[in-house]
């Protein structure tokens, strides 16, 4: 397949996200820029200007009318997707590392950094889906992991029942956010989590970690369902929604951390693992730096990866991807 290279960023990518139909791809980077692209041909639709610091995270609502971003300038901003106008800015005490709309698009969770005496929090803010309406300043609830390790990633479960948080020490916690109560904790990873992505129905999720593994868990029971062990610290993991049962993981050690290098350029790879059989099935190389973020197109026909090298590579699968049958 011939990937489309999107060169809209000058610094490393932090997150990419497809909208629900998959025709738009949002990309955010440490260079303070938020871009939105048409995913079928890589044409850039526009950019959202306003953040004063690295943009760590982005999400878009299910109607593709509003997008929300979190940044190192201690703010989260709400944008009108079509016009590029900033509708609302929420101020926090520290940087916002992860942001996600809930299933009803009327709330968003923000994972804030722990710094300068301020503990890391997961703050739920409410969003008014009406583009013209004023947005509330007051958070609905602020969850603090009392003295425990800070959360680095988080996500909503189905029906917005719970919030799942991934922490810097490798643990995962489940919260009843309405009551601000921790329900469950497990420690499946030995190093920090780097990404959490849910299945389409949010009944299970995959986590990637610096301990070189990715695991799948049940949302409610937090049972570990699958495990994928690789040889490189992983920065992102994603589940293919249709046609094939794969998970795509990616990561990589930065050049300065590697002591034995092979001289090949473009050697950072997205790895395809069979979700059920826990076997590696293939790799797609191309990035010149560690892969920071992976997103699968909602129709299952392609995927994208964003790297430390500042490129977003948008891939569309060839026909033999769909014909692949594992011989087991």
């Amino acid at each position: 397949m011939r990937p489309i290279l999107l060169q809209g960023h000058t610094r490393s990518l932090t997150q990419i996200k497809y909208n629900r139909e998959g025709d738009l791809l949002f990309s955010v980077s440490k260079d303070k820029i938020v871009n939105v692209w048409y995913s079928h041909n890589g044409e850039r639709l526009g950019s959202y200007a306003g953040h004063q610091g690295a943009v760590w995270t982005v999400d878009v609502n299910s109607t593709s009318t509003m997008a929300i971003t979190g940044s190192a300038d201690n703010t989260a901003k709400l944008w009108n997707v079509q016009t590029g106008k900033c509708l609302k800015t929420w101020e926090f005490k520290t940087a916002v590392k992860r942001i996600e709309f809930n299933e009803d698009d009327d709330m968003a969770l923000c994972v804030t950094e722990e710094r300068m005496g301020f503990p890391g929090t997961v703050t739920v803010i409410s969003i008014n889906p009406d583009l013209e309406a004023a947005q509330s300043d007051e958070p609905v609830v602020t969850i603090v992991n009392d003295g425990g390790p800070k959360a680095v990633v988080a996500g909503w479960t189905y029906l917005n029942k719970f919030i799942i948080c991934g922490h810097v020490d490798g643990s995962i916690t489940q919260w009843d956010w309405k009551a601000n109560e921790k329900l469950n904790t497990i420690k499946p990873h030995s190093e920090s989590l780097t990404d959490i992505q849910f299945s389409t129905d949010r009944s299970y999720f995959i986590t990637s970690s610096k301990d070189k593994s990715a695991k799948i868990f049940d949302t409610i029971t937090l049972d570990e369902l699958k495990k994928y062990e690789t040889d490189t610290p992983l920065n992102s993991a994603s589940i293919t929604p249709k046609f094939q049962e794969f998970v795509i993981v990616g990561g990589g050690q930065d050049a300065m951390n590697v002591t034995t290098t092979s001289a090949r350029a473009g050697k950072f790879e997205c790895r395809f693992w069979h979700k059920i059989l826990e076997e590696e099935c293939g790799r797609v190389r191309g990035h010149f730096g560690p892969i920071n973020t992976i997103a699968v197109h909602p129709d299952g026909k392609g995927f994208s990866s964003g790297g430390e090298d500042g490129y977003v590579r948008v891939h569309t699968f060839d026909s033999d991807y769909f014909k692949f049958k594992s011989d087991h």
Partner: protein
Amino acid sequence: MPADTLASTKPSWADEVEEEEDAFQTQVYTDENGLKVIVEYRDNDDGKKVKVTRKIRTKLVTEYVNKAVAERKKWAKFGEEKGNKPGPDLSTTTIGENIPLKLSSSYAKTPTAEQQVDEQEVKMRAALKSKNIMCRICKGEHFTSKCPYKDTLQPLDEIAASLEGVKNEGSSRPESPEPSGGSGMGPNKYIAPHLRKGATAVGESPREKRDDSATLRVTNLSEDVTENDIYELFRRFGQISRVYLARDRETGVCKGFAFVSFGMKEEAERAQQAVNGLGYDSLILRVEFARSS
């Protein structure tokens, strides 16, 4: 005037040159397969004219999309893209090279190209191990040129020592390193020349001294004597480490003298006594110990 009209109808050389230039025009046409072909002429980096042919196959893909998706396609561009015309901008969007995704159930078990190269190396080494390869520098089981300590200074003396040892014992390799293998043998310690094993304070390495004490100067050689002749003549007295035949720089013809170095001083003495006064190619040879100046 008639002369003028004649001149004007005759094509001048200037016009001919111009016609050639016209031949290098960009052509766009559609060939029999329906491919659009663009033929351009341009100068490449070496200043030479190159013909660039591009064949473009255009495929029309009709996709049925969600109404909302179609609506979004019509949105005006904003932000950095404001005012840009529809279609991807080449400064932000390019097509990468073709990357195949080879899916297989046993992906992890198939060796990659790198792994295969490594495997070959391992196999080669294993095959060679049986042939008793030894490095002259560190006596390891690898070729001298592949030695990890190849570029440290100390080993040069050890090479000489082992070479001498080789000659002395007449075997293919000494069984153990020279007993005077010396202080700090190994890759990590630098030893100053005057502190190295066997070195004299004056700075003359023992190897050269030994060499000169066993070196003979042969004079009154005829013009057509070669190094090989010298070698054949003197080898019966012992192992020859060096033969130098003085030649004239321009003509290459022998200047009439040569130097022969033996491994042992005793060999040189025997040779000197035997060859001195010997008739060779209708000349009487003179052999004496070389005096290095």
